[in-house]
C-alpha cells in the first residue's frame, strides 16, 4: 500500500514537489481572480515561468 502510494506520488509529483504546489497555487489564484469577475488569463503565464525559474535555480 505504501509502495503504491509512493509510486503514485512519484508519478504525479516527480522529484520537485514545489513545482506541483506552485502549479496548484497558480490555478487557485486564477480561479480567485476569475471569481471576482476580473480577466484571469494573465495570471498563468508569468506565474508558471516564475515557478519554473525558481525551481531550476535552486
Amino acid at each position: 500500500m505504501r509502495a503504491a502510494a509512493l509510486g503514485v506520488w512519484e508519478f504525479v509529483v516527480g522529484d520537485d514537489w514545489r513545482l506541483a504546489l506552485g502549479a496548484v497555487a497558480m490555478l487557485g489564484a486564477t480561479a480567485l481572480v476569475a471569481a471576482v469577475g476580473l480577466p484571469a488569463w494573465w495570471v498563468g503565464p508569468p506565474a508558471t515561468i516564475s515557478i519554473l525559474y525558481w525551481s531550476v535555480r535552486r
Partner: protein
Amino acid sequence: MSAPEVSLAISVFLATAVEAVEAFTIVLAVGSTRDWSSALLGVGVATLVLACLVAALGPALTVIPIGVLRLVVGGLLLIFGLQWLRKAILRAAGAKALHDEAAIYQREAAAARDAAPAGGVDAYSFAISFKAVLLEGLEVAFIVLTFGANQDDIPLAALAAGVAILAVVLAGLAARAPLARVPENSMKFAVGVLLTTFGIFWGAEGAGASWPGGEAALPVLALLILGAAWLMVRDLRGGRPRLAAAPS
C-alpha cells in the same frame, strides 16, 4: 486537420517517441542478452494492460463535465510539463547529465547476464520488459487520455501514440542497436513546452478564465514558454562546466 488537432498529434507523438526509445533500450538489452520470447511476452502483456487502461478510462473521462476535466487535467499536465521542462533545461544547460541510451543498454545487459539463468519462460526477461513498458507506457497513456479527452478526440491521440511506437520500433529494428542518436533532450524540451502550454491553457479555462482569441492564444503561449525556457538555459549556462552523459 485543425490547428488544435495538429498540436495534439505532435504533442502525443513526441512524448510517446521519447518514452518508447527508453523502453526499447531496456527490452533490447534484456532480449538480446537472455531470451527474446520472454522479453516480448513481457512487452505484449504490458501493452495489453495499457490498452485496457485507455479503453476503460477513456469513455469514463468523457462523461466528466468539461470545466472540471480541464481544471484537473490542465493542472496535471502543467505539473508533468514543468517536470519535463525543468529536467530538459537543466540538461541543456549542462547542470544535469544527458540521458545516454548506449550506457543504459550496457548497464541493463550486464545486469541481465548476471541474473540467474532460467528454463522455459525466463521470469527475469519477462519482468524487466513488462516493467519497462508499463512504467514508460503509463505516462503515454496519461498523455493520450488527457489530451484526447480535452479535445474530445481520444482516437486521434491513440493513433499518434501508435505511430510513434511503430516509428521507434522500426528505427530500432533497422539499427539493431539502442537509439542513442535520437535527440532525446531536444524532444523532451519540446514535449515539456507543449505540456506546459496546454496545462496553463486548459487549467486556466477550467479555473474560469477566458483566453483572448480562444485557441489562437495557444501558439503565443507556446512561444512565450519556449522563449522563457531558452533564457533560463542561457542564464544557467553562465560559467557552468557541462556534465558528461550518464545512464539515467
